[in-house]
């Protein structure tokens, strides 16, 4: 599939960090979500976690952040349930603001390139994990872990399992999922950003094609001048104008 070529560079990225001597830990996600120390689901984290309530912070724009989501129909490329952490875990980082990389690898035999939007939406977990505030930006994840969640034992295994469960919940075609978290240093996250930028080019092209099939040009930047349907829209605008004026006149008379 479209992203398959990027699985080896990501594997190389992880391998190179290990060769460089970075702390690398691997976990396997548990099947039973009731063992998680925090609640997950809609409204599990209702609202903002202020700085004073935060145990630690990940990926703010000044610290650096990279977020990658790849999917494939070749399930053999995914180590299902594996969570890899390069760098410090959450309980080891009290008060810290760490750079953050998040790689989500998804496999499903019937996944299609056109599933991108659905998978992207499945990963929006803004208020779904108790004690975890995510304010995502494109290609980045800025998040905070609350002191309460940390006290309950919230760590990257918890976060990984929660994300895996939410992805599966939102997209039944997912058969395998693997997550890599990077908190080691800003240079590693920057390198990840370089890979992310290449992937984003492909993604943008794919999203453009997906929308083009539905008759939309998403590269127009709200400039209608080159759009083939401009004449039709101009006519509709004219109708709207006439209706607005008529309604004003009615109001004045009535």
């Amino acid at each position, binding site marked *: 599939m479209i992203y398959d070529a990027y699985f080896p560079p990501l594997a190389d990225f992880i391998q190179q960090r290990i060769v460089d001597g970075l702390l690398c830990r691997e976990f396997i996600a548990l099947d039973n979500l009731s063992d998680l120390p925090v609640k997950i689901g809609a*409204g599990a*984290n*209702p*609202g*903002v*976690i*202020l*700085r*004073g*309530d935060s145990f630690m912070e990940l990926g*703010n*724009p000044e610290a650096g952040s990279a977020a990658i989501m790849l999917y494939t129909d070749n399930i053999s490329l995914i180590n299902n349930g594996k969570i890899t952490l390069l760098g410090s875990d959450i309980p080891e980082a009290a008060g810290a603001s760490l750079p953050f990389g998040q790689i989500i690898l998804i496999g499903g035999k019937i996944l299609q390139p056109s599933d991108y939007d659905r998978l992207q939406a499945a990963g929006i977990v803004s208020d779904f994990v108790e004690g975890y505030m995510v*304010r995502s*930006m*494109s290609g*980045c994840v*800025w998040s905070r872990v*609350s002191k*309460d969640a940390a006290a309950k034992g919230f760590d990257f295994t918890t976060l990984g399992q929660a994300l895996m469960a939410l992805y599966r919940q939102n997209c039944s075609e997912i058969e395998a999922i693997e997550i890599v978290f990077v908190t080691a240093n800003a240079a590693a996250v920057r390198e990840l950003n370089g890979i992310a930028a290449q992937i984003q080019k492909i993604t943008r092209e794919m999203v453009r094609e997906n929308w083009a099939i539905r008759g939309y040009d998403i590269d127009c*930047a709200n400039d209608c001048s080159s759009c083939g349907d401009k004449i039709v829209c101009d006519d509709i605008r004219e109708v709207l104008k006439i209706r607005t004026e008529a309604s004003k006149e009615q109001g004045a008379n009535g």
Partner: protein
Amino acid sequence: MADMNKKTAPIIAVCGKGGVGKTVFSALLARALAAAGVQPLLLVDADPVGGLTSAIGERAVETLSGVRERVINAAKVGGVAAAAQAAEQLEYFVFKALIEREGYSLLAMGHNTNKGCFCPANKLLRSAIETLIGSFNGVIIDAEAGIEQINRDVTGRVDRVIVVVDGSQRSLDTLRVITEMLGAENIAAVANRAVIDSSVIPVGVEFLGVIPEDEELKQYDREGRPLWQLPETNAAVTAVRVISNKLGV
């Protein structure tokens, strides 16, 4: 963290003609509400000069205007792509500008160096502030002047407008204009350093009380000492405490 079951936090805007004592009232009202258990409180210093910030003994290193400038300057220099990136990061910088203390937090507006309206930048900023507001049990906004500035720069929702008057005709004219604009229902008036005849208050506007002329407060103000350090027994502090009880927050 915000509690889903709590009632919506009341947003109180303090308005009035320049020089009537909006900042003094805002500072003492915040102190009274916090002492009464309305915590955490969000204070928004919407005055470009930052009067409320210094009145409570704080200093704002990052301001909302600084965040706004970041987006505007990015758009000026880097075009759409740079503006989009700055807009995406805006929420982070608003959160960063928040001064967090035990029981209260403060956002200072600061002053804009880019002349012009820049409505889209204001809209982005307002959206980030409104996200933050949800985490507090009460919000007090010390306005530069009228309610329109709050609606443009801070939030579209204000539950109670308290107009401070000082007995002068101009301050009463301001009260009248704000009442005509918004309707009397959610407006209340406070008299600062003046006893006024209740007949000058527009019909339907609740009159909350008088803050007496106070030498001790004036001295604190002259010396730049935080008004929150005034003793509990101070006459102005006592008067605002009584006023705050009437708000039913």
